[in-house]
């Protein structure tokens, strides 16, 4: 192992360079802008601006919508992951492929596709109209945003849960059955606790992107519902106030760090990691 120390360092050097340029430096800039005003003097006003009525409301809506989406993702993903974990290799790899396939397409394109599907004159409503069924009017409402979040982030919930489920030793489950536990007891006492690392990891990977998204609310919400991601984006692109945008980003980072810390505590061995 000791020999590997040096080569290990050398091998990791490209990544370290990459991380410094593209992660550490930008992060430092966010903190610099977030904690200064236009004259360059130190201030925390940009961070405390989250308390103002509009920002707090946007954060609140974001938290609400991303929590709902995370819950829906969980309840859809867990049974699916369980079914996948019980299949043999050739069957499940096909289904996993079906799940991963859309992820090869650009996220923006997929969201735009949902817009084309859900629009008043969109594909779904044309089909409904053909069968004389009432139209589906969820485009530009919070429901469409939740749908977009669930659709885009569901694979991030399925894969970690699946990973943690396949790692459960079948003998543990068999032992529980031997000792007289019925299926429900086995599930709640054995399978579920053992898959918690995957669940936590899945929740993190769905909740954080859902909390910070601004594209989904723009494309599917018609920009009528202001999420905290939209507020930050507009500070950069429209209002030209990078300081306030960075300050609000710092607030979001606090949520991300809390979330990551939670997942680190529950998932010490990195069991539920995606790959």
């Amino acid at each position, binding site marked *: 192992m000791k020999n590997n120390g040096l080569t290990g360092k050398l*091998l990791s*050097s*490209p990544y370290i360079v990459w991380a410094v340029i593209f992660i550490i430096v930008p992060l430092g800039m966010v903190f610099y802008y977030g904690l200064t005003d236009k004259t360059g003097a130190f201030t925390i006003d940009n961070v405390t601006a989250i308390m103002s009525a*509009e920002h707090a409301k946007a954060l609140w809506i974001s938290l609400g919508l991303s929590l709902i989406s995370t819950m829906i993702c969980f309840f859809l993903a867990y049974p699916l992951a369980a079914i996948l974990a019980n299949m043999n290799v050739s069957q499940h790899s096909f289904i996993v492929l079906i799940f991963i396939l859309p992820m090869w397409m650009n996220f923006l394109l997929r969201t735009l596709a949902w817009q084309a599907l859900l629009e008043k004159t969109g594909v779904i409503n044309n089909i409904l109209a053909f069968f004389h069924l009432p139209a589906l009017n969820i485009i*530009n409402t919070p429901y469409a945003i939740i749908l977009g979040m669930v659709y885009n982030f569901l694979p991030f919930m399925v894969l970690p849960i699946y990973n943690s489920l396949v790692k459960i030793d079948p003998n543990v489950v068999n032992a529980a059955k031997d000792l007289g536990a019925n299926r429900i007891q086995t599930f709640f006492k054995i399978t579920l606790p053992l898959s918690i690392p995957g669940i936590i990891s899945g929740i993190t990977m769905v909740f954080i992107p859902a909390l910070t998204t601004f594209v989904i609310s723009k494309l599917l919400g*018609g*920009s009528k519902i202001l999420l905290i991601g939209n507020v930050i984006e507009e500070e950069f*692109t429209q*209002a*030209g106030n990078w300081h306030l945008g960075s300050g609000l980003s710092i607030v979001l980072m606090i949520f991300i760090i809390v979330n990551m810390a939670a997942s680190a505590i529950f998932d010490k061995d990195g069991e539920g990691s995606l790959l």
Partner: protein
Amino acid sequence: MKSRMNKIFFLSICMVLFLFSAGCGNSAEGKNGEVIVYNWGEYLDPEVISLFEAETGIQVIYDEFETNEIMFPKVEAGATQYDVICPSDYMIQKMMEHGLLAELNFDNIPNAKANIGAQYWDRSKEFDPENKYSVPYCWGTVGILYNKTMVSEPIDSWSVLWDEQYQDNILMQDSVRDAFMVGLKLNGYSMNSTDAGELEKAKNSLILQKPLVQAYVVDQVRDKMIGNEAAIGVIYSGEAIYTQRENPDLEYVIPKEGTNVWIDSWVIAKNAPNKENGEKFIDFMCRPDIALMNFEYITYSTPNDAARELIEDDDIRNSSIAFPDLNQYQNLETYRYLGEEADQMYNSLWKEVKSE
């Protein structure tokens, strides 16, 4: 084993160096240098760039922005040195006031004064009082695009955007100044107002309107109107011509309360590394045949009178959308830069509307 490790290490270092050199270097320079152009997205016929490069031997490095507000801090920070930029009216004024623009040497741009109509130079004086810094490239109005199959009554006023029968059928512009322009004009105020009371009233109008709005959009208003998704939309005149081509049911009007007459102009940055090449580029853009190519590609009105003469289709050449007779309309204005304080007021009021 060790030598293999060294090889891997060597290769990875090479990769990093390669990525770096690809990022910073520019080995394939044109024989007469280069010009760095910063323009709006989809705002130029790409073929024009190839023609310019072939004729002058100047290599064009082309970059695009989405909004004036994204462009400004990049130019101000000076991290990337641009030569030629294409901001809008009020932003040109702001850049002038911040000392970011260089005076143009019109001796190098003979096509500008020769081909661009006097009325556009006059209008440019609103933001560039001596016509020293900017050369008009595109202009237009902001108005209402409506679908004749969904709207029966004649439309001539912004107030239709507050008409409850069009609930969920209205598309509004998702940008501060354009949204407030509508709100201010509806109430009979100037769209360059900095009066807190007037802006408050405009804000209240916009909040009142929000339940009727289907979506706040920028470029998407084009596709949504073509696809019959909404009955009424606020749109830039340049887009209107394109939408009519795709969907003949659409009609464009300039509301009677007045609207924004905007101009996007070429300017040269103060710290431009290739100022003369930049002026050559602007001159090339003012050539009638080139201006015509651009007009046909992007359909935004050209201030180039000589190019307009070359348009073959009579309907387009005399189109009241592309080339309206501005004297017919009242209360037409051009955006002015209102200063930082007013900008902040606009932005926070707009946030109140959006979070309502």
